[in-house]
């Protein structure tokens, strides 16, 4: 394959305990640690491995977001991507930018770059939509394999075999390229970029485009009108004996 395009997203760091803002308009993001979405890291890692195996010549990272998304792109470059594209928009990426708009913006980047393979994370840990890969594949008329746990690209670069997670276990599918793959947890363990690569990343090309200039309607059709914390969990009950437990399971929880 000549080129792999990897989508990456800057999200609240997975270890941060998020809080809903006082005005209930969204999650509080001010002064919050942001990082590359974990599933995006896995996507980048897989793309780099394809290049290291000789299955791809070039890996391009793309991110849609505010100016700070460029930090996430530099991380992708430090992991080994060759080039980066920043699609700039200040629309709130955890709840303002709609799934369709994201897929349409990526479609424009695919039209520009003509990659043979697009890899994205299965979902972002902020929005949790899990829609980018299938929506992009549909817009492009391409094949897709979501929840990839293993990816093997054929030597002739014309097809790929993917083992993907299903509700019952896993399944192996074969699909023609070009295709869109979404990375799941078991696909790989991403590398930590080494310092020399972090320094090299600063010099790698990063192109900035304005989302508003790409001919995509960014106006949301899904509007978040309020955000609330989840309901408090009811307290658990300690039981004194097995008979007590069986009684509660039978008469209160009605499971037996």
């Amino acid at each position, binding site marked *: 394959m000549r080129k792999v395009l990897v989508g990456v997203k800057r999200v*609240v760091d997975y270890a941060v*305990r*998020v809080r*809903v803002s006082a005005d209930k308009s969204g*999650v509080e993001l001010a002064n919050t640690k942001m990082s590359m979405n974990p599933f995006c890291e896995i996507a980048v890692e897989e793309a780099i491995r394809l290049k290291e195996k000789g299955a791809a010549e070039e890996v391009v990272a793309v991110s849609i977001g505010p100016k700070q998304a460029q930090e996430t792109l530099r991380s992708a470059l430090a992991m080994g991507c060759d080039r980066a594209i920043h699609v700039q928009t200040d629309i709130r990426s*955890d*709840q303002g930018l*709609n*799934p*369709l*708009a994201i*897929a349409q913006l990526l479609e424009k980047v695919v039209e520009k770059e003509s990659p043979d393979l697009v890899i994205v994370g299965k979902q972002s*840990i*902020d*929005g*949790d*939509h*899990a*829609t980018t890969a*299938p*929506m*992009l*594949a*549909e*817009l492009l*008329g*391409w*094949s*897709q*394999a*979501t*929840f990839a746990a293993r990816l093997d690209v054929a030597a002739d670069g014309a097809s790929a*075999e*993917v083992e993907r*997670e*299903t*509700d*019952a*276990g*896993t*399944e*192996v*599918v*074969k*699909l*023609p390229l070009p295709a869109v793959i979404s990375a799941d947890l078991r696909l790989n363990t991403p590398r930590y970029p080494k310092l020399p690569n972090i320094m090299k990343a600063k010099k790698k090309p990063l192109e900035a485009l304005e989302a508003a200039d790409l001919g995509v309607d960014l106006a*949301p*059709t*899904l*509007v*978040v*009108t*309020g*955000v*609330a*914390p*989840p309901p408090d969990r009811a307290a658990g009950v300690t039981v004194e004996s097995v008979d007590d437990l069986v009684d509660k*399971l039978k008469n209160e929880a009605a*499971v*037996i």
Partner: protein
Amino acid sequence: MRSALRRAVGEATRRRAASTLVIADHDGSAMTAATLSAMTAAGKLAPSSAVLVAGAPAAVAAEAAAMAGVDKVFHVEAAPSGKGVADFVTAGGFSHVLAPVSNNTKDFVPRVAAALGVSPVTDVCDVLGEDTFVRPFYAGNALATVEATGAVKVVTVRATAFDKADAAGGSAAVEAADVAAAGAEKAKFVSASAGSSDRPDLTAARVVVSGGRGMKEGANFAMLEKVADKLGGAVG
């Protein structure tokens, strides 16, 4: 009093009722229990729904026809394309398309939404109205109330958030549906490997047994598995 009544009746008839289509979830040979939860969610929008059984044999269509709240089952045996289902939705004038969340529907329903030119609302845990849904995000640490303003709402629902509708008692008609089949772009199935457990799937289990620090050590988790086996539950 009479004019208020007249106004209310006028309003009810002026507002177009939601026309709902539930996409049945299946594994190729049987409908999943999660589909019954999608029926309940659909029931919050309209008194009955059409059901689409696509990519599965007639036996699955028969299962769907037996559910409570179904006015008609549309059946097509060949796996459909996203555009095929989108065209079917448009032709049928459906205002809402629902499906339960599963790895199958997560793979397919967003393609339908993209073909319809709308953003889907995924993993919904409450239906507040025809345009308004609640979905968890930030790994369930926040709940978002979402207003869907598109002409067609495509919604996937979290099965554990909606009680299962009755699986039996219904007797809807099954009609052959003309839905374009998926083309060469569809990934071809090579093989499957089932998880080693025949316990129910966590997303649809009636009972979930979980353990924590009280179990003291990993070996003791075998006790939880025995309880789960007795209760017919999942461990999670």
